[in-house]
């Protein structure tokens, strides 16, 4: 009995100590109010003599919540690596407003609840002036509620539309091309590239797939497309022959498959099995080597929209081209692998924030908000960003290209 109560009290204390101890950069008093960093950078600091690792001044802390573990790890890992690279490079080049940049990356384990806890920690303990996150849409939405309430800018790297389309949305900006944009790119390819009018849609029943279908329905008239049939499948479905058989009965001229791996790969294989030779247009969710690995030969001829980082030669803007080529070189040298579009999301996420800070010459939330809303023609890895008070997505359809799988590799389509 005695043992139990002593142990229970001790355990409570352990919890408190353990969790406060793992903050790392805990400031002494936990009484400080959230968010506003009282010290703004001294104006016009001579950054020139702060080369190397001898930057002076309080670090500017930017928080990031990414999924380095859990199902979204394939998204979170490249994002984290890009953030690390940017932090390293900018500190070597004199920091931000003459102060060192400190990017604190926390793992949300691909889980919205963990994202909530992580964001609390970034705002309360790390005193982040802005946060980037998350890798997945559910976590991003959960974070959004907190950053909006705290009045802290958040940069989203996930593509789900409702991140910016649903309130609260005054404190969130996005760097990844949103799903709707990718859908429109795919539809425009069907209309202008393939030149057909009747399509069937096979979509994942999750938020990604469902919103894809919704957007197709919304833009189809603009491109003169008719959806003759649609079928959904559950996310980890292993056999799509039933759905495809149903779709085939409506005689479409092209098939749009909107989902993330492994569903579209199963669809590709099943198409081959059914001996149904129809053009297959996929989502940006299959813009990875995994799709080809899973689908094997069935991946031949499949097209999908993606950002230009896969094909620097397709970039017309010289600034963006230079940026991407440098990113590819530096990233590969640092990590031994080429960057993918998740890396570019991570990169743009921090780049956009730093640009806003330098523009506003301050880290005050209100100033950042104004600077972000005023960001025009900012060259990022994912495209040229222009934000306004009402458009927090920043990119256009032209920022995406269509890629086709040929001989097990990617080629520029049309």
């Amino acid at each position, binding site marked *: *009995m*005695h*043992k*139990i*109560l002593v142990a*229970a*009290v001790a*355990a*409570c204390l*352990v*919890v*408190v100590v*353990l*969790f*406060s101890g*793992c*903050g790392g950069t805990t400031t002494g008093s*936990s*009484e400080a109010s*959230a968010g506003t960093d009282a010290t703004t950078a001294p104006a016009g600091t001579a950054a020139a003599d702060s080369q190397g690792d001898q930057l002076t001044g309080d670090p500017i802390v930017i928080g990031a919540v990414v999924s*380095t*573990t859990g199902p979204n790890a394939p998204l979170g890992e490249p994002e984290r690596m890009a953030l690390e690279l940017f932090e390293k490079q900018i500190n070597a080049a004199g920091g931000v407003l003459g102060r060192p940049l400190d990017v604190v990356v926390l*793992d949300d384990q691909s*889980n*919205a*609840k963990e994202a*909530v*806890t992580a964001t*609390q*920690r970034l*705002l*309360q*303990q790390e005193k982040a002036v802005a946060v980037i996150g998350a890798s997945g*849409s*559910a976590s991003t*939405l*959960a974070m959004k*509620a907190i950053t909006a309430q705290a009045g802290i800018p958040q940069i989203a790297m996930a593509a*789900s539309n*409702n991140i910016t389309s*649903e309130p609260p949305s005054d404190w969130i900006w996005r760097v990844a091309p949103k799903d709707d944009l990718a859908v429109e790119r795919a539809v425009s390819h069907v209309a202008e590239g393939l030149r057909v009018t009747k399509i069937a849609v096979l979509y994942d*029943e*999750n*938020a990604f797939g*469902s919103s894809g279908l919704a957007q197709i329905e919304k833009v189809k008239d603009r491109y003169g497309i008719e959806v003759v049939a649609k079928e959904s499948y*559950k996310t980890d479905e292993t056999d799509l022959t039933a759905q495809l058989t149903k779709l085939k009965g409506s005689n479409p001229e092209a098939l749009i498959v909107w989902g993330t791996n492994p569903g579209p790969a199963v669809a590709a294989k099943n198409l081959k099995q059914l001996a149904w030779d129809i053009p297959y247009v996929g989502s940006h969710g299959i813009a990875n080597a995994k799709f080809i690995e899973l689908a094997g030969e069935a991946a031949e001829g499949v097209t999908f929209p993606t950002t230009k980082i896969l094909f620097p030669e397709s970039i017309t803007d010289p600034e963006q081209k230079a940026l991407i080529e440098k990113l590819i070189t530096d990233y590969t040298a640092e990590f031994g692998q080429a960057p993918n579009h998740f890396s570019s999301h991570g990169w743009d996420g921090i780049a956009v924030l730093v640009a806003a800070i330098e523009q506003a010459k301050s880290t005050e939330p209100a100033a950042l908000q104004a600077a972000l809303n005023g960001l025009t023609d900012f060259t990022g890895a994912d495209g040229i960003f222009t934000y306004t008070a009402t458009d927090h997505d920043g990119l256009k359809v032209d920022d995406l290209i269509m890629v086709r799988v040929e001989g097990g590799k990617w080629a520029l389509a049309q």
Partner: protein
Amino acid sequence: MSGGTSSRVSRFVPRNWSFAVLAVAVLLVPAFTRDTYILSIFAFMATRFMVVVGLWLLLGLAGQISLGHAAFVGLGAYGSAILVTRADVNPWLALVMSAVLAAAIAGLIGIPTLKLKGHYLAMATMGFGEIIHILLIQLKGLTNGTDGITGIPPLSLGPLNFSDPRLYHLLVWVVALIFFLLALNLTNSRLGRALQALRRSEVAAQSLGVDTSWRKLQVFMLSAVAASIAGSFDAHYVQFVSPDSFTLNVSVILVCSVVIGGFRSVWGAVWGTLLITILPEIIKRFNEDAVNLVFGLLIIVIVVLLPVKSGPLARLQLLLRGRERL
């Protein structure tokens, strides 16, 4: 069981004073820290504790296993979310309504399956859990599918607004501690002793006049209610619900909490909750992915090594667990 209220109270205090100290310690935490991060850890621990206590009653006391308890938590969370955001129901009323629904469903499932062998309830609850998960995704009009429901308002009661982390901590822990107290007293009550008899031998219990099916059903329903209330609290705290918080994996981890904490006494629920919160943090220092592996292996080890009839290992166990209860 003699005497009136005064002797009951005077026996209550000394027997439960370890509980009293725990309660005071936990409730005083907000006095020592205003850090929202730490308070959020405690907030999640409180609701987890509620579920684990309920599950302990089912597993430890009645010897029945539920592999779908995450679904009851989900019922509470979504019940509150939908009623409050779609139908403008008072959050407290919604909490009660969801709990009633959970109890009803538990009753429906329990009546046919509690007659069958233990693993049938396990499978039935597993199946039920999966069905709920599927429904949460499919009934998009009601639940918003995988997008989840956002904008759930925080709880408030008159002038008290529970979006203040410290107030919320008090609220949620008071409720959790009430559950714990109920469970403590249940263990020593008529129902509790009947259930413990049941765990030893159903036949013997029946021959002594214990209505086993009805008792098991009561406990199952009670555990469902605890889970549902916990879910409702979480929904108002995170202000967001989504289907992937209520999966089979979560149910299994809950069972792990009870097993690892020990199901000899209700205090096992305290240990279980603590361990489930602390252990992952420690394990992640070594290997980020290994948490569930450790849990899985741990419960195998515990269950294999645990009830040793005699010998030095048994004595060691008795020592560690304190006085063995009936």
